[in-house]
């Protein structure tokens, strides 16, 4: 049985999410999907979940107490592909299979090119996640450069 919890966004978080061109409803969809399937990673104090919505991969960073509190939301356009390598343990665990998440690199494809980027990976399932600082900064600039250079 899935108990549905309230999903709470502070005004500040809501503003930040909308400032990135994302919808609050999209973040809710990511969380609802993750809570129903356990498809999420945790470091013991919070969770990160992802879902492909249209052309972007949307992430929710949230904590669970009496309700679900959203810490942030972010996204990237580059598509996650295969894991290139894993190099060290991280503080994260994949809730779905209980495996320790590793730091590593994952191939990302965008506009016909495939390049790797640092990521969190689960070699057992082949799943990868990008942390917020990478998606919001490094990968966002990379997407802009790809668009310029492919033009």
């Amino acid at each position: 049985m899935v108990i549905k919890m309230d999903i709470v966004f502070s005004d500040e978080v809501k503003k930040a999410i909308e400032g990135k061109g994302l919808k609050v409803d999209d973040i809710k969809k990511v969380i609802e999907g993750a809570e129903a399937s356990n498809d999420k990673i945790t470091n013991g104090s919070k969770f990160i979940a992802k879902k492909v919505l249209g052309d972007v991969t949307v992430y929710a960073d949230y904590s669970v107490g009496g309700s679900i509190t959203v810490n942030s939301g972010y996204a990237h356009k580059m598509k996650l592909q295969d894991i290139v390598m894993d190099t060290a343990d991280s503080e994260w665990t994949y809730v779905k299979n209980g495996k320790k998440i590793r730091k590593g690199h994952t191939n990302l494809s965008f506009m016909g090119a495939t390049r790797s980027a640092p990521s969190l990976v689960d070699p057992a399932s082949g799943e990868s996640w990008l942390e917020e600082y990478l998606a919001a900064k490094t990968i966002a600039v990379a997407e802009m450069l790809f668009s310029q250079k492919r033009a």
Partner: protein
Amino acid sequence: MRVRGFIMGYEELFPKNDLSGWHANAVKRFASPFVDNFHDRIDVDPIILSNAAVNCGFTIRDFYEKPELGIHCVGYISELYDLLPVTHWFFSLPWVRELGITLEYKDTLPPVPTGPILDANGVENMQPISKQDLLKGSTVPLFYGLYDYVQKNLGHTLVPISYGFDLVGAAAELIGVEEFIMWTFTEPDLAHKLVDSYVATSINGAEAMADKYGFAMLIVGSVLANNDIFADEQVEEFSAKKMGYYVDQCFRRGAGPQVFYHLCGNHETDYKVFKKNLLWSPFNVLHIGYQGPKVFPSDLLKKEFQDVTTCMGSVDTKLMINANPAKVYDQAKESLLAGRDSKKGFILGTSCETPPYTIPGNLLALTRAARDFGTYGTW
């Protein structure tokens, strides 16, 4: 600059680049290896620095003492040899002045330190320089001024770059290179503290660059830490791991995503410790200078690293001052044939900065070889 009694800006010394012809084509070619949009031929990057000034009639000292003049020489002369459409200007010791070192300009060399400034006690008490203090120092204002000049006069070549450069080598200058090498055996904790302080300062500097320009390409290398001096384990602990940390922290502060990894000197066996320790972004280039006394083979470079980075092959810099362009051409051909089908692209380079007095015929030989053999795979 005063020429015959008139004050001139450096920009008045140079005709404008051919923007619609040479530069437009070079831009498309430069993008090729990063976005799989193959164009023209494999690019050539002989890491041209003071050679550009010499080629324009100035001196090595001019190049380093007058950064705006130096970078304009690079932008101008790149057209002659059909090189990269972007400019760079640097020397190997950024951030050390803020940490207390005095640099002295020389007629035939990049700026060199006047001597070490710290002892063990000084290193124990050493603190990284904050971003706020770097903004008031010499390196950030130098690069802000330089890129302001490029934006105004060479905007078509602008790529803001932040240099960590040789994290171990620059830190070692603070206590003296020989002393540092000794410390890695006798006082490893202090040696780590020294390098970590330099790394933290460099990260703060990268953030200052990213704050102003929105992003900043990173150039970071392993020069002093190579197999002529250290075993693989030491290269990993003192250099590779700290390079990875530097890039990760720079990414967190908004610098990157472009990274140029420059492994200068002999990386005969230590090349194996870099892949797992470095961060590989969608836009990075890895360059390794030598394997023992020979240039690092492009086939090995490709085999080890092509799944994570664009590879940059090498022609021995010693050949660039040898009166034998055919030898340069032959080594360039060998490198191109071995590396040109690298999965994430290939660039032809020299094993380090091309020497100031590089023979023009040898630079032409590099480009000629790239035109003759620099196709991507069977393309």
